[in-house]
């Protein structure tokens, strides 16, 4: 009965207490009104948005932008776009991570200034040396802490068009203390609830199984936080294993996770997640990943790796050519297909 009495008291009260405010920096303001204006101005035309990685990065990502990648570890990560950002050296980026190889590359190239961080590491291969170097040296100026779901929920708040979302993660911890979340007393039941501020991205990067030229995109298997992040991005760059006719989308509209009007650029990028995996399409290239794990251990070897695989090639196709048909085919046969 106790808790419900507290609820009754809460109902009669005229304010709710803020129990705690995280002291982490709010790297991007939850400006839902500005986001509305932006979304209103976006073209709603079903135009052909196909372009190269180079054009998309040049047109849509500026130094200092707040960007995000959608992925699950090394899986379905937009690596061909990440490579191009490194190639063009877009600097002073602020990022949301969850990240494995993607953010590691950006860190290796010293392109990141601030991080809303949940996890940056190499999964089974251990700590990220690049994260260590960039953060411990102070080159990354601001690190704000969140949980994995916390970042996804923050995207969801932006996707909903509201400035915050209530959750029960992060309470009582230093993770909250070093975040920009707030804790209030729930006005209905009296229990403490964490409010996470909406996270609106300047640019979102998502790799998908198939999309049409306008950006209507579908993903097979688990969908991570693609739906939320797509809807939280002011500009959205989609790379896709395959471009399909719009009619393919129209036959299965219930498979569409990202409608075209969210999308600014569509890049055809087979093996776009390499060396990570893409379910039903290809397995991860463990040899290449181990290569990076080794190379990332010192700044010098990391730079050599970037020189060889990014700066040394002009584009994604040239990158793939470094590996050759046979190896790529082997990765394909390593992934179980999808039964009809």
């Amino acid at each position, binding site marked *: 009965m106790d808790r419900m009495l507290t609820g009754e008291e809460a109902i009669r009260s005229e304010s709710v207490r803020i129990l705690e405010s995280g002291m982490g920096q709010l790297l991007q303001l939850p400006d839902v009104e500005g986001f509305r204006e932006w979304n209103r101005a976006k073209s709603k035309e079903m135009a052909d948005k196909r372009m190269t990685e180079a054009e998309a990065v040049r047109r849509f990502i500026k130094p200092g932008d707040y960007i995000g990648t959608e992925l699950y570890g090394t899986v379905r990560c937009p690596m061909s776009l990440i490579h191009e950002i490194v190639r063009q050296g877009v600097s002073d980026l602020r990022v949301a991570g969850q990240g494995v190889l993607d953010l590691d590359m950006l860190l290796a190239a010293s392109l990141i200034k601030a991080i809303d961080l949940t996890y940056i590491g190499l999964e089974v291969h251990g700590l990220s040396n690049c994260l260590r170097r960039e953060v411990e040296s102070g080159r990354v100026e601001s690190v704000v802490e969140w949980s994995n779901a916390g970042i996804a929920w923050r995207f969801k708040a932006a996707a909903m068009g509201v400035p915050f979302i209530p959750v029960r993660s992060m309470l*009582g911890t230093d993770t909250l203390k070093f975040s920009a979340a707030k804790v209030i007393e729930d006005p209905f039941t009296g229990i403490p609830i964490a409010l996470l501020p909406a996270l609106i991205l300047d640019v979102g990067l998502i790799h998908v199984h198939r999309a049409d030229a306008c950006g209507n995109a579908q993903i097979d298997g688990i*969908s991570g936080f693609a739906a939320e992040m797509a809807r939280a991005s002011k500009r959205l760059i989609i790379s896709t294993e395959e471009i399909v006719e719009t009619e393919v989308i129209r036959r299965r509209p219930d498979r569409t996770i990202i409608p075209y009007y969210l999308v600014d650029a569509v890049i055809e990028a087979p093996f776009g997640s390499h060396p990570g995996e893409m*379910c039903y399409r290809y397995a991860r290239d463990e040899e290449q990943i181990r290569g990076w794990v080794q190379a990332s251990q010192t700044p010098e070897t990391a730079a050599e790796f970037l020189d060889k695989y990014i700066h040394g090639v002009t584009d994604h196709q040239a990158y793939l050519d470094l590996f050759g048909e046979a190896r790529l085919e082997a990765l394909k046969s390593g992934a179980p297909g999808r039964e009809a």
Partner: protein
Amino acid sequence: MSDQPEPYNASELLICTTSRLMEDGTTAFIGTGIPMLAASLAQKMHAPNLVTIFEFGGTGAILESLPLAVGGGCTFNRAIAASGIRDIVETAQRGFVEYGFLGGAQIDPYGDLNTTVIGDHDHPKVRLPGSGGGNDVGSNCWRTIAIMPHDRRRFVEQVDFITTPGYLTGPGAREAAGLPRGTGPYRVVTTLALLGYHSESKRMQLLATQPGVSVDQVIESTGFELLIPEQVEANPAPCAEELRILREEVDADGLYI
């Protein structure tokens, strides 16, 4: 078969000990590595109806191969649902997930875990990966089980940073912070021992020693005062059947063990 117990390595010991904690017909939030192997072993040994839940969307997969990534295809292999991270963590947040498995660089007597920094947050000595799903699991699953190597640098009086909540500062602290009622750390599985928490004080206590390990060894490897009950069990070694399944079926390619 000889009477000599079969030899096993540290990973195999951790996997088997963890596996035995997984009850049939319940739900477990599974990370890559040891929890995944333990769940697969449990499904084949005593818990065919253990429902595996993977953070990025896979529910009820048939664990036929092992993933190197948290969202690998095997995490939703022949699953009953493949959704996304919010659906999974919200499922935990509304009370559907019994067990969660965690690791960490440091753990304190209340089961608080650090995976964020060694040293000061803003000027860290070692920058660790961060919370990942750890905080979500430790906040929302009913019973969390930590799996850790056992030494004094890891079992410390005070962690440098509470990434994931254990019992925080002690009895009542989770509830006061607003964390779901009745949740909290349940077990710690280490190479030296199986540990739990005192029902009143919420401090870590020894439950059983691993084969060949003495209580004193455990005490010496722990950087804080560990509660030692009158009765300390001896944890049985991995049995031949467990090891056979683990080596021949669960991780036939030797990815982890």
